[in-house]
């Protein structure tokens, strides 16, 4: 993302300060979302005009960067390092001309802690004092002028949510850009003790290239303090020079030996400064009036009503994904079917047409079909986030989710997984920490998505008798059982993966319950459209490529002896009957030929090749072909089976012809292929295997690489194989 030469301004601040709302307010619709190189943290950059005034000396335009929220600049990982890198222009970023620290006035002291760190860097800085509206509601007064005097930099009170004070902020930014003023005494508001100062100088001597030319001694000390607080024997920081690392570890060791606690010294000194000066700029009423937000909370966080409200809201989200999206999905499917039909009618019959219709048009359709659910889900997520309810949902559910190592916010992605894993994986963004996001992404595909339904319906309908058990329909019970099974496996997988593959150092979970507020329509529209765009351009291309490749595998090579032999019977079939009977006979022949083509295609051969692997699960090679076809989307299993068995691709899961054909299918030794035991094994396989190109594409997009999608594919396939293997082998041994 390169932007033309305009002054660069970074927005930094704690999480939940309204920083992103401010970014959206300032940049309007011009913000663009990308990724920070190498890590899966979104980077939002956007240009904005600063003033309509005639003051030509002031900058009229600048580029804003919305830096991910953080409580401190001290970091342990590449992800947390973004803030310091963005502020100093280290690594791939350009050094900003101004830092705007967005401060949540309702959590003033904690936000000032980060502000002090930013000031210490000795760069032009400005404070945007946000949430002034919420502050008034709470009866608290903050004196911006006094705060400015205390910090030594301009402080502009604003309310990003209500668009108050933004012109003053723009003007202040323009003035700062026109004539940058450095904070007094290079930004240090507190004086380190002599011992700490000696430590900082010892580390600063080894900054090397990390200390750009012209850096003052105190700015170098700030960087040294950052290193001292961040570097560890086992941190995951990037590009810390070896000499600097050694110097830090030496100083830390010496301090420990002397019985000192460097972390506590620096943190306590910063807070001591804040506590000492707070009375000058903040006045809190002795008995705070209960804000209406607090009163709403007594209901929404109530042990009974809280959960009733929670379930009602979640049910609405679920219903929207499951049912409301249906007409739009149907429309897209119909439109692409019509487009395919029209293309087929106007193009000459042949391979090129097949490619255009089945490969391309079908492939694009299979991408666009996700859009309705993505748009709906992110509309809900946007509203839930903006109003502040999402934080409450996490507060309510954290205890339950934490039992299996998941974040409280993982609830919405998991729930969305019942509809479709693709939007659900995209929804993991609501969690700040990488580990929480990845863990949720790994287990979401185990939730019973709606694409599994047709497969379950076919298998259960064809292979399990429609009897009753304890007066309840067995087929329905089995379906319900599969839902519970998927959910249970997702939770078990979370517990296992969280303790093994995704085990990380323990960091405290931090939640904030922001005051309730009205969602901002502009931000909401932008969230939804940016999600849709990202999906189409990044995941969509992979899905399309996957669909085309699968189409090719199941299409080539075209000819074979079996096909030629069937084609040779065509004149005979034509002659043997006429009228409707002839049309029917020819359609049956076409279906036979399509089946023969598929059986002899590369996909058919792969089915044969993997037969030894899937035979212990009770599957034959034809099921293998179906499993391969199901990679495009699970429900494709049904039409692939239709083609394999020469019934035609136009079957649905209720098709009696297909069910009859399946039941008639025999193994080499004459036993039927499909028994209830095969059905159970197949059900488990579909419940657990990651039979979905789109899911993998979504994980690839969210983790920025192939490592995690491949891991998901591997672990889920292995899990599916083992469970189906045990089912079939134990079942066979018991004589089922």
């Amino acid at each position: 993302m390169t932007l033309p030469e305009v002054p660069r301004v970074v927005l930094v601040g704690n999480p939940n300060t309204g920083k992103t709302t401010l970014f959206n307010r300032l940049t309007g619709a011009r913000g663009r979302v990308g990724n920070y190189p190498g890590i899966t943290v979104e980077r939002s950059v956007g240009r904005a005009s600063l003033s309509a005034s005639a003051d030509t000396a002031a900058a009229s335009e600048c580029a804003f960067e919305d830096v991910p929220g953080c409580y401190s600049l001290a970091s342990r990982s590449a992800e947390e390092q973004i803030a310091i890198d963005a502020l100093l222009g280290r690594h791939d970023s350009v050094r900003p001309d101004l830092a705007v620290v967005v401060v949540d006035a309702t959590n003033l002291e904690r936000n000032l802690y980060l502000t002090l760190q930013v000031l210490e860097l000795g760069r032009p800085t400005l404070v945007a004092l946000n949430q002034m509206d919420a502050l008034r509601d709470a009866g608290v007064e903050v004196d911006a002028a006094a705060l400015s005097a205390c910090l030594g930099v301009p402080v502009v009170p604003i309310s990003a949510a209500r668009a108050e004070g933004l012109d003053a902020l723009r003007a202040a930014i323009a003035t700062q850009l026109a004539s940058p003023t450095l904070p007094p005494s290079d930004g240090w508001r507190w004086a380190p003790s002599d011992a700490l100062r000696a430590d900082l100088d010892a580390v600063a001597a080894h900054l090397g290239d990390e200390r750009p030319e012209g850096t003052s001694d105190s700015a170098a000390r700030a960087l040294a303090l950052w290193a001292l607080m961040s570097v560890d024997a086992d941190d995951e920081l990037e590009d810390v020079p070896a000499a600097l690392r050694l110097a830090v570890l030496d100083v830390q060791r010496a301090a420990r030996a002397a019985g000192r606690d460097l972390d506590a010294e620096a943190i306590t000194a910063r807070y001591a400064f804040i506590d000492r000066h707070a009375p000058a700029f903040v006045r809190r009423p002795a008995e705070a009036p209960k804000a209406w937000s607090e009163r709403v909370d007594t209901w929404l966080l109530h042990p009974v009503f809280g959960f009733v409200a929670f379930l009602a809201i979640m049910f609405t989200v679920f219903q929207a994904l499951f049912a409301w999206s249906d007409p739009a999905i149907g429309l897209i499917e119909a439109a692409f079917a019509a487009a395919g039909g029209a293309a087929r009618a106007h193009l000459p019959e042949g391979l090129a047409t097949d490619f255009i219709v089945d490969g391309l048009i079908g492939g694009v359709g299979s991408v666009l079909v996700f859009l309705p659910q993505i748009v709906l889900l992110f509309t809900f997520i946007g509203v839930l986030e903006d109003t502040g309810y999402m934080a409450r949902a996490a507060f309510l559910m954290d205890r339950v989710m934490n039992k299996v190592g998941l974040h409280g916010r993982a609830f919405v992605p998991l729930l969305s997984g019942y509809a479709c894993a693709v939007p659900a994986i995209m929804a993991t963004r609501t969690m700040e920490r990488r580990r929480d996001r990845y863990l949720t992404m790994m287990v979401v595909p185990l939730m019973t998505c709606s694409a599994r339904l047709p497969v379950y319906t076919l298998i259960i309908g064809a292979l399990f008798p429609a009897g009753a058990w304890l007066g309840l329909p067995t087929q329905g019970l089995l379906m319900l059982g599969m839902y519970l099974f998927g959910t249970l496996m997702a939770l078990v997988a979370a517990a296992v993966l969280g303790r093994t593959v995704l085990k990380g150092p323990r960091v405290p979970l931090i939640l904030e319950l922001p005051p309730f507020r009205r969602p901002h329509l502009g931000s909401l529209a932008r969230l939804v459209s940016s999600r849709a765009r990202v999906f189409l351009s990044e995941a969509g291309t992979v899905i399309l490529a996957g669909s085309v490749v699968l189409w090719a595998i199941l299409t080539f090579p075209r000819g074979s002896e079996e096909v030629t032999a069937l084609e040779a019977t065509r004149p005979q079939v034509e002659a043997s009957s006429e009228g409707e009977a002839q049309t029917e006979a020819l359609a049956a022949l076409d279906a036979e030929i399509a089946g023969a083509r598929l059986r002899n295609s590369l996909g058919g051969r792969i089915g044969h090749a993997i037969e030894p692997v899937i035979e212990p699960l009770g599957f034959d090679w034809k099921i293998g072909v179906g499993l391969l076809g199901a990679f495009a989307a699970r429900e494709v299993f049904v039409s692939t089976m239709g083609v394999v068995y020469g019934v035609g691709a136009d079957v649905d899961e209720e098709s009696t012809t297909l069910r009859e054909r399946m039941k008639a299918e025999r193994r080499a030794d004459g036993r039927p292929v499909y028994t209830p035991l095969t059905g159970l094994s197949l059900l488990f396989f579909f419940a657990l295997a990651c039979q979905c190109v789109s899911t993998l594409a979504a994980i690839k997009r969210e983790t920025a690489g192939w490592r995690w999608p491949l891991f998901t594919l591997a672990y889920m396939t292995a899990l599916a194989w083992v469970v189906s293997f045990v089912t079939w082998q134990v079942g066979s041994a018991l004589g089922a």
Partner: protein
Amino acid sequence: MSPPTLAELRPEQSGTVTRVGGERAFRRRLMELGLVPGTRVTLRKVAPLGDPLELEVRGGRISIRRRDAASVELER
């Protein structure tokens, strides 16, 4: 007897932080949230299922898990 911790407060009870324990990155983060020794903390809310806890520190609010709060020792 071990000193009382933040996890043992009842709603609307307060205490003064005396010590923050735990591994380095963990305790650093807790201290950076304002839980440095000498700070007055009040427990404001407990989630309906008993976890997490919402604290008031220096006029601001923050929620952490009970297990994490148990690393913060208090003086009542």
